[in-house]
């Protein structure tokens, strides 16, 4: 009888927890968030909005922020130890596969969260990346990085080029040749490796086809051949990203174009090429050559399994707000140029507004169009390792040590040795 009573009480409590209000207006809550890079800055701006304060007057967020590598190493260690993490943990797209395969994160599609109905408004490819084969959604995409071409309109005009609809990569390389003026120290592009990830849709997944690594072969050979062509065209400044000469070249206006994720616009705006007195810069945005659709980055928010039940419910309300509230999504975009994963905001009037930094160009429309058409990449737990091997192959082609075919063969051998 005692056991029966206990079971009934337990059932009532569980039901109340699962179906009742996650946030009691009479209580105060503190949700802890593990973040990296600029995310804390963005989310602090979100919680400062009237909308957040109105919806969550009794919730405060506490951040544990570190640099990119440190954050993911900490998270991996604590989850592997089976110990309690922060209530919400951010994950970069490159790490999502590891957790999709290895577990440790709460299935947001399961009750009481039932996130399926929410995730339908998020970009499809990003949701697919965070979904296991069994249909569990282990994290919710919060921002994505549609890949575009940034180019300097002043240099393009001098070279007599229209960069808005570059037909294909060969046409892009031809344009880079015209943009390059070595007598003035101007280069079409920073480095040949800068284009290497685009044909692979960012290279954060998609390394396998039918369980065979680096297939289809043509996709990978094309990527290496593109790198080789750019190198052979002699249009690059041989500038390693995030180095002194690299940033100085941008500051001096010596780099004419770059293909990268939308977030790079923030780097240009705040750092590499600040706007003039009128708020504008010479930079413009165009689709990738051949209107290729690709992603170059992105962030997910997750709730680790070790977070206690009642905290999970509160954490989910905040996660839901950050990923599904137009105010949160647009505030994040405004703060750190992290493009919204929430597709419903693509129709917001702000997306149609001219952006002063890009000379009044409506760049957000381009970002949104790319975002809606990015193909899905199947992720695997080997993605990070294979990505490292692949970078070695790209470097071999850039340095002229290997042909694309030889670099591909060598990379394939290493990948097979790694996964077997």
């Amino acid at each position: 009888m005692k056991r029966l009573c206990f079971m009934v009480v337990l059932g009532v409590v569980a039901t109340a927890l699962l179906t009742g209000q996650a946030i009691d207006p009479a209580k105060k809550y503190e949700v802890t968030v593990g973040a990296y890079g600029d995310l804390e800055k963005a989310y602090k701006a979100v919680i400062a909005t009237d909308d957040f304060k109105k919806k969550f007057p009794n919730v405060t967020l506490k951040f544990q922020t570190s640099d990119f590598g440190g954050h993911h190493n900490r998270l991996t260690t604590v989850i592997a130890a089976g110990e309690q993490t922060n209530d919400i943990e951010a994950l970069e797209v490159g790490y999502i596969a590891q957790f999709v395969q290895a577990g440790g994160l709460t299935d947001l599609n399961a009750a009481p969260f039932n996130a399926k109905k929410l995730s339908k408004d998020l970009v499809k490819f990003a949701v697919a990346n965070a979904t296991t084969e069994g249909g569990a959604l282990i994290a919710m995409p919060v921002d994505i990085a549609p890949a575009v071409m940034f180019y300097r309109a002043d240099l393009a005009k001098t070279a007599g080029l229209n960069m808005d609809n570059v037909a294909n990569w060969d046409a892009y390389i031809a344009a880079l040749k015209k943009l390059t003026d070595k007598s003035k120290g101007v280069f079409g592009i920073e480095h040949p490796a800068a284009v290497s990830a685009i044909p692979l849709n960012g290279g954060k997944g998609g390394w396998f086809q039918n369980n065979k690594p680096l297939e289809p072969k043509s996709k990978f050979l094309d990527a290496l051949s593109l790198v080789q062509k750019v190198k052979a065209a002699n249009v690059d400044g041989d500038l390693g990203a995030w180095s002194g000469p690299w940033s100085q070249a941008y500051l001096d206006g010596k780099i004419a174009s770059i293909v990268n994720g939308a977030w790079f616009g923030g780097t240009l705006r705040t750092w590499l090429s600040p706007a003039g007195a009128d708020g504008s810069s010479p930079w413009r945005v165009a689709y990738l050559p051949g209107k290729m659709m690709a992603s170059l980055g992105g962030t997910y928010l997750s709730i680790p399994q070790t977070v206690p039940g009642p905290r999970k419910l509160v954490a989910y309300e905040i996660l839901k707000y950050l990923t599904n509230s137009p105010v949160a999504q647009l505030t994040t975009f405004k703060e750190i140029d992290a493009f919204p994963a929430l597709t419903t905001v693509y129709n917001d009037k702000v997306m149609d507004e001219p952006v002063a930094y890009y000379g009044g160009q409506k760049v957000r429309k381009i970002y949104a169009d790319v975002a809606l058409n990015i193909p899905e990449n199947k992720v695997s737990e080997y993605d990070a390792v294979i990505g490292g091997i692949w970078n070695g192959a790209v470097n071999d082609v850039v340095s002229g040590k290997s042909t694309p075919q030889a670099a591909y063969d060598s990379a394939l051998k290493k990948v097979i040795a790694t996964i077997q």
Partner: protein
Amino acid sequence: MNPFKKLSTYVTTFLLGLLALVFAFPFYYVFVLATWRSQEVLAFPPHLWFGTGLLENWTSLFGRVPFATNFLNSLGIATLSTVSVLFFCTLAGFAFSKYQFKLKKTLFFFVIATMAIPGFLNIIPFYKMMVVFGWINTWLPLIVPGMAGAFGIFLMTQFLENALPFELLEAARIDGVGEFSMLWRVVFPLARAGMAVLGVVTFVGSWNNFTGPLILLPDVDATTLPVALSVLNSRVDNNMGALFLGNALTLLPLLVIFMLFSRQIISGLTAGAVKG
């Protein structure tokens, strides 16, 4: 002096001076970059002289990071680690070098063998233990487990083997000095050079430790400088100037310690280098 010998001395001095400049340059450069604004830090060709962005960087650094709190955390953890390591490792080194007891060699081998285990291999069980002890967000996991580290025990054992004559210990015993007070009156004074080396190595290791505080001290107010400064490392919001200022300020205690103890460190490092 033979003119050739004189010339050779000048050339050697010049080359060593040049080498010293090469080694000192990165330290100087960190302080130079700390005075340039974030957008100017990565300028090329690089800045070799001080800039005018110090105040801006200072405001940015102290606005983003609870620097004073993190500095005190770093200082507290590094100091307590160093003091405890010096005490326990010298104690163990004294025992291993001057006492005879059963299984001494086996125990010493066991201690040394722990050095062969890469740190990252035991990070997960270590973390779990710290959770069980309730030590997360405290200084204890960064101090207590390393108090009697294998490296320190090995270093002090080897050092005391040569620096502490048996005759001196016997004389102290004849004078009625107890075993433990011998540690204070005889061992520590004679082990100063070795302890200086171990102290600096421990302090620097603890001061620069990133992974430990990152995992064990999740609260921003509880963490140490390397972890706190990593917040400034981002790709869109450029805080390079503040980051370099933070690095420069972080370097200062290490420079002060080296200046204060350089004589002992050098004599400790060279002890035993010359026979006789």
